[in-house]
């Protein structure tokens, strides 16, 4: 057991990779789903074991193939990485029961096998990004997950899905290439690819901010910003989320942007350190402006959007704004808010997209006009939607409130009062777009098509309810979420100042 335990970090990545091959060998969607289910359900087990180990004994360093870093590739699990690993693997696993019917209803039989293959590849990529400490290895995982994502999106029913996938492919590749250019510049300056090795070399006083380092930071930040859909580099995202299969939308909304944000945090704090990121390059100012723009402009667009998937996608952009705002604040409370919102937003947005998936499963449409009165026919699904929406607004007692609370405290600590109001007012915009859906769904007479709808089968309903319950739970007991985020934030800010 202990031999296996020491191999946990590599298992976290290799299991889904091998699983993808296994799934590809299956015939028929059902068996593919079953294999994928088994694989994804081992993921949280591994990540939670890793998390426990990190909490007990501190960061884990795993040397791939026995080669010591910086020459060999190192997998490193610290608290933040473990946090994101748990987040990704839990969301990935929680979605699987939902997947069977949703995927079967949206994707042709022979393509389901490929869908699950790509899903596992994407999962492996995302977990790999999180766990690796090698900057170039990170790029490879980034591309693995991205390529899988393009396929997942392209499998959407609508032909516009192809277009969205193509656009995402172009933008994603530019982003990844920017990232790898940045890493190349860092390599030229420091001669190392290991994130922690680079960090210690950059901390050397002899390295007084040479220009290539600044250029590297710029390339990496812009490249990753594309991936995490920071305003104004977000344009690919609404199309991608809107036209992807429901299951893929839910998965991507919950995990893909979150992992990209993790990379941004990792580079801004662990590699470059606060001194370079926030003092030499005014990352704070840039990020605050862009975050605010995202919080307001994207949220306002969401108000006018009539396709609910697009509406949620724009709302995601706004929520990403909150997270980047937390990063921009670069103090303990603000960063805690950002990190905890990673988790909270992943939970609530996945539940919301699942609710839409259930509506699409029953009704075949997610247009605002089409869902009139659906609250009376699919009460459980819409209850999930309403609760998720309340969490988006940041209603107290939901997880969204906890994040915003920390963000607001962070802003107050900086003495930036207007920011507190900006956070609160942009929450009010969320009231409007969520309220609009509530109004249509509960207060209008159902159309004949809606009359026939009922709540989806339990296999779809339970995952939604579980995630919604988690949203409420983390709104009340914040020890596991905010407590962990606080520790992670302290490490990030304290480690390499």
């Amino acid at each position, binding site marked *: 057991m202990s031999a296996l335990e020491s191999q946990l970090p590599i298992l976290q990545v290799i299991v889904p990779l091998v699983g993808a091959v296994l799934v590809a060998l299956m015939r028929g969607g059902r068996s593919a789903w079953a294999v994928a289910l088994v694989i994804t359900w081992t993921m949280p087990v591994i990540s939670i074991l890793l998390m426990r180990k990190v909490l007990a004994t501190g960061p884990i360093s795993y040397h791939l193939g026995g080669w010591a870093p910086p020459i060999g590739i190192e997998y490193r699990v610290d608290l933040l990485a473990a946090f994101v690993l748990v987040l990704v693997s839990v969301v990935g696993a929680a979605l699987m029961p939902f997947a069977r019917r949703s995927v079967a209803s949206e994707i042709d039989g022979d393509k389901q096998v490929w869908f699950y293959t790509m899903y596992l590849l994407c999962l492996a990529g995302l977990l790999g990004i999180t766990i690796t400490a090698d900057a170039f290895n990170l790029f490879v995982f980034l591309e693995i997950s991205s390529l899988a994502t393009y396929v997942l999106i392209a499998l959407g029913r609508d032909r516009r899905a192809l277009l969205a996938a193509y656009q995402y492919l172009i933008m994603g590749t530019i982003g990844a290439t920017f990232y790898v250019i940045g890493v190349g510049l860092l390599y030229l300056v420091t001669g190392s690819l290991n994130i922690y090795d680079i960090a210690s070399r950059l901390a050397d006083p002899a390295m007084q901010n040479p220009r290539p380092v600044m*250029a590297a930071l710029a390339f990496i930040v812009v490249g990753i910003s594309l991936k995490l859909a920071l305003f104004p580099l977000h344009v690919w995202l609404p199309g991608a989320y809107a036209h992807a299969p429901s299951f893929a939308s839910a998965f991507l909304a919950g995990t893909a942007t979150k992992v990209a944000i993790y990379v941004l945090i990792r580079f801004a704090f662990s590699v470059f350190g606060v001194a370079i990121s926030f003092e030499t390059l005014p990352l704070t100012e840039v990020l605050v402006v862009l975050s605010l723009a995202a919080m307001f402009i994207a949220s306002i667009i969401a108000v006018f959007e009539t396709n609910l998937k697009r509406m949620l996608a724009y709302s995601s952009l706004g929520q990403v704004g909150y997270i980047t705002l937390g990063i921009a604040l670069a103090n303990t409370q603000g960063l805690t808010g950002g990190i905890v919102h990673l988790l909270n937003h992943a939970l609530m947005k996945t539940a919301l997209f699942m609710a839409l998936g259930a509506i699409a499963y029953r009704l075949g449409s997610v247009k605002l006009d089409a869902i009139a009165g659906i609250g009376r026919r699919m009460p459980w699904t819409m209850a999930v939607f309403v609760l998720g929406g*309340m969490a988006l607004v940041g*209603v107290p007692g939901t997880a969204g409130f*906890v994040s915003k609370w920390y963000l607001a*405290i962070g802003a*107050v600590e900086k003495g930036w009062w207007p920011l*507190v109001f900006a956070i609160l007012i942009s929450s009010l915009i969320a009231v409007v777009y969520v*309220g609009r859906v509530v109004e249509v769904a509960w*207060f209008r007479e159902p159309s004949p098509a809606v009359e026939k709808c009922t709540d989806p089968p339990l296999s779809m309903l339970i995952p939604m309810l579980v995630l919604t319950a988690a949203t409420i739970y983390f709104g009340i007991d914040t020890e596991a979420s905010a407590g962990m985020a606080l520790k992670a934030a302290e490490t990030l800010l304290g480690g390499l100042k």
Partner: protein
Amino acid sequence: MIGEMSPGLILVLGAVLVPFLKGQARAAWMLALPIIGLMQLLSLPMGDLGQTTLAGVPLTTMRVDGLSWLFGFVFLFAAFIGILYNLYHDDPLQHAAGLVYAGSAIGAVFAGDLVTFFLYWEGTAIASVFLIWASGTERAYRAGMRYLIIQIGSGVILLAGILIHHHATGSLAFTKFGLDAPGAMLILLAIGIKCAFPLLGSWLPDAYPQATPGGTVLLSAFTTKLAIYALARAFPGTGILIPIGLVMAVVPLIYAMMENDLRRTLAYTLNNQLGFMVVAVGIGTEMAISGAAAQAFVHVVYKSLLFMAIGAVLYRTGTAEASALGGLRATMPLTAALCIIGGLSIASPLLGGFVAKSLILSAAMKDGYFWVWLILLGASAGAFVATAIKIPYAAFFAADSGKRPEEAPKPMLAAMSLAALASLIVGLWPSLLYGALPFPMTYDAYTLEHVVTQLQLMAFATLAMVVMVALGLYPFERPGQLLGADWLYRGLGYRLLRWIEAAANAAWTSIVGGVTSASGATVAWARSLHGPDGLFGRTWPTGTMALWTTVMLGAYLILAFV
């Protein structure tokens, strides 16, 4: 009984079961909840309970002292009669929302720290809007939206105030604040919105009349009285409250007399009574605070009774407009009698208002506030006309509308009788109330002087009314919308908003258009370089996105190297 759980939380959690129960079981369960809550309240000791920490911040989720006990008690009573009254309908959403609303208000009263208080405070806002929306009309929907925005806005301001206060003092305890810090001012503003301060309170007559008949009963009991409680807790003796309260006590009265919709009339008189309590909090002596608490207690009881009576009329006839009512006493005698008791409760000996309001007047007199005393005395005469005379007169007497509705349903009658009984008990045995006040006192309300002067007030006000009716000067009810402070946001504000929206739209279009056409020009230039297919002047989304990426990179590099 159930640990140190807040009685409010019992109602909130109990609401979860409501949609799953049916018929009698549901009725029994809902009525049991406030009783369980009351037993829980009686079993709790005084003091700070339910201490816990949230993210390292110590919280006191339950604080039982004189002030919170009294408000908690009357809120539980109001919840009971409100639930009883609401049994006439069978809408689980409305029942659940009502329970969550009442529970949140009770929870807020027992909150010992600002975070807990804020959580419950927002709970009242969100749960209550469903009582308005449950009417299902377009007007109710819009009024509910306005209500929600204002209530959540109040919550936002409260939260901002709490944050600033916490940052300045490091404390989250919900105690008395001085008005010298920006945090406390924001908190006062937030409470002021809920308390319907002048210019801030238009939501009250706007939203309450749009709720369902039973919804209004619940609404009238909690939100504003919770605000009074918060004022008494946080800002006793704050001088600015006295003029604010006086304006509240006078101006809404005029509106109440003008108003045609009887539920809106009641909303205005509610606002007028809040003025008395705000003045008392502003005076801030022990007697004044006790007076505010006593007044709030009694007011919850009789204002619920009045809203219940008019709600029954609305339920039976489909309207609450004075111009469409009149002469209903013929077929709704019990409702009429209970309505009159509710109206008389505002001042008459043997009923609740008599023993409560005099505390405030005495407190003003004792501290030598002559003008305050005089204005409040006048306002209480006016309130008697607007509440005790106008409401029953317009609905049950006046010009016969020819309507002959059935008597109110049994649960409604039962709830109204309970409220009337409560008013009578307080009126007959005032020492029960006085003993439970935050600063327990012995005060003799039944002196000959007090009885005679109060009866004089009532009789002469009635005389004025009779004379005016005889002379044909009494304002005959006609439908219409009265302009009030809500014009600021519904009329002017709306126009302003539209203007801002248009301006923002134009600005946004020109910025985006500028950037897009700049990029379009680049692309067009690029096209013209690249031969025959370069005929299109418009941009391609992928190209534009990539361009933005380069712009961002350029910006970063410039920032880094400058």
